[in-house]
């Protein structure tokens, strides 16, 4: 038995969600008294690779073939499958990022391995079983899924496992596999960078606006608040439907499901479809001028009042605190 983790990089850097997944994979390896191998694909420098060892990777397989510079799920799945073969891995961990979500099922089908996408806890291995808890019904519930295949694949939800230091000697091995050209039909034409400072799925703090903000011209007060908090911006569905904000900011059952430490809902009523997307938030704050708005039923903290007054005051108060 051994554990493999695929460590996705973003422009040569690993994000926090990757270190969480490494820590998680380390915990599984420890529970089974076995070792953890990381596989990194693309251009990542030695200092950055060494960080994987700091969070518990015993060995790092470094794949730098030039044809694998850009993510193509089909090709990456075949590389990771080769790495799994080489290391005899029977548990493979990924972070449930946008790319991870395309990769895990391809890898699963290739290896005939059961896949849990959106895991939120370590597997329960009591009595030789392998049961993983994941979100289901768009955040309205959890499912406990037993995997019975020889190889098991887990894609871990960001912000659901703490980053844990667990330093191992750095051991990097160049690993290059011949990949079938048939795996490279997908051609990257262009990458368009968004100007968002923080991406929503791995944001630790989110400031989210609803129809209560009345129009896109009023987003400035939310941007200011997000700036002092280092937060990502989000919105409710009607806001993106109306074109006030882009669709990729829409949170909820039919949008992004988020798991931040702090979610600040401003002028959002708290419809069941919206709440589905935020049930994993650790702390929910509501700012709404209707004391009966359903959002207050799930919020931990709140203010009943006019967002146009309160949000700038909150921004100022936090600025004060940051200075202190």
């Amino acid at each position: 038995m051994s554990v493999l983790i695929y460590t996705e990089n973003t422009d040569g850097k690993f994000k926090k969600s990757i270190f969480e997944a490494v820590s998680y994979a380390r915990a599984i390896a420890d529970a089974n008294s076995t070792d953890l191998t990381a596989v990194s694909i693309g251009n990542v420098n030695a200092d950055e690779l060494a960080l994987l060892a700091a969070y518990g990777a015993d060995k790092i397989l470094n794949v730098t073939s030039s044809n694998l510079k850009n993510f193509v799920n089909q090709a990456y799945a075949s590389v990771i499958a080769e790495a799994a073969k080489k290391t005899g891995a029977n548990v493979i961990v990924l972070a449930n990022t946008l790319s991870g979500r395309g990769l895990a099922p391809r890898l699963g089908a290739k290896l005939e391995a059961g896949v849990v996408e959106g895991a939120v806890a370590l597997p329960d291995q009591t009595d030789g079983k392998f049961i993983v808890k994941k979100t289901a019904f768009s955040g309205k519930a959890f499912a406990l899924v037993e995997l019975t295949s020889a190889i098991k694949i887990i894609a871990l939800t960001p912000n659901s496992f703490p980053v844990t230091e667990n330093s191992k000697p750095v051991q990097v091995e160049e690993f290059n596999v011949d990949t079938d050209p048939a795996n490279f039909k997908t051609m990257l034409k262009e990458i368009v960078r968004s100007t968002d400072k923080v991406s929503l799925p791995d944001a630790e703090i989110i400031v989210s606006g609803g129809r209560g903000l009345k129009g896109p011209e009023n987003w400035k007060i939310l941007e200011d608040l997000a700036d002092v908090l280092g937060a990502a911006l989000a919105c409710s569905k009607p806001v993106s439907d109306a074109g006030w904000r882009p669709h990729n900011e829409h949170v909820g059952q039919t949008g992004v499901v988020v798991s931040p430490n702090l979610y600040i809902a401003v002028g959002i009523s708290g419809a069941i479809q919206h709440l589905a997307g935020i049930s994993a938030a650790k702390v929910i704050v509501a700012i709404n001028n209707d004391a009966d708005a359903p959002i207050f039923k799930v919020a931990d903290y709140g203010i009943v009042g006019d967002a146009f007054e309160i949000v700038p005051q909150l921004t100022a108060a936090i600025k004060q605190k940051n200075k202190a």
Partner: protein
Amino acid sequence: MKILVCISNVPDTTTKITFTANNTQFNTNGVQFIINPYDEIALARAMELTEGGKGTVTVINVGTVATEPTIRKALAIGADDAIRINAEPHDAWFVANQIAQYIKTNPFDLVFTGRESIDYNGSKVAGMLGELLHIPSVSIVKKIDINGQEATVEREIEGGKEILTIPLPIVAGAAEGVAEPKIPNMRGIMSARTKPLAVVEPVEVKLIEEVISYELPEPRGQVKLAANAEQLAELLHAEARVI
């Protein structure tokens, strides 16, 4: 161009989720079932891409006879014909194998799924189908256009988006932005009754996962209301320790 749209039958988004049989079964009592919202988006895009006689749209569902109203709804929206693979959709692996088997003998240029089903949230069927059929797949598609034998696909990535070009056939998992869902009109509803709906028997698939039970999230405590912004900032800092 032949397009296949995979549709799953899911509880309406307003459903309050509860479980029965010691939390091992989803309580379907009084639950309204709908076409998975992302599949509706996929269907709408499929119709746009084949508009004006440029192709056909087939919908496929793995489900028991109970899902036929949902399939008929897809026909009413505008699909040309439908396939139902007659089995309980045990999980994504089971579903993907059934659909892949069907496609192997009935090829399509473009296979749409939704980005994810809103009940089990696997985001798995698209990628599994791609791998089983040895063709490219894009799991979270924000935009898709077809030019001749090539698809141009926009995919969301961390911190931006990618624009990809891929020769057909491909599997695409439709997300918001791909199209606006279409509402069936009277003519559609009338014609849906007579459009072909073929029932196909499933193939055998070795199962590799099982839902053991469900849990509901911990209920949240009472909200603590702050009198003003300063007090709220203080609570978030000193008590909740999140800022």
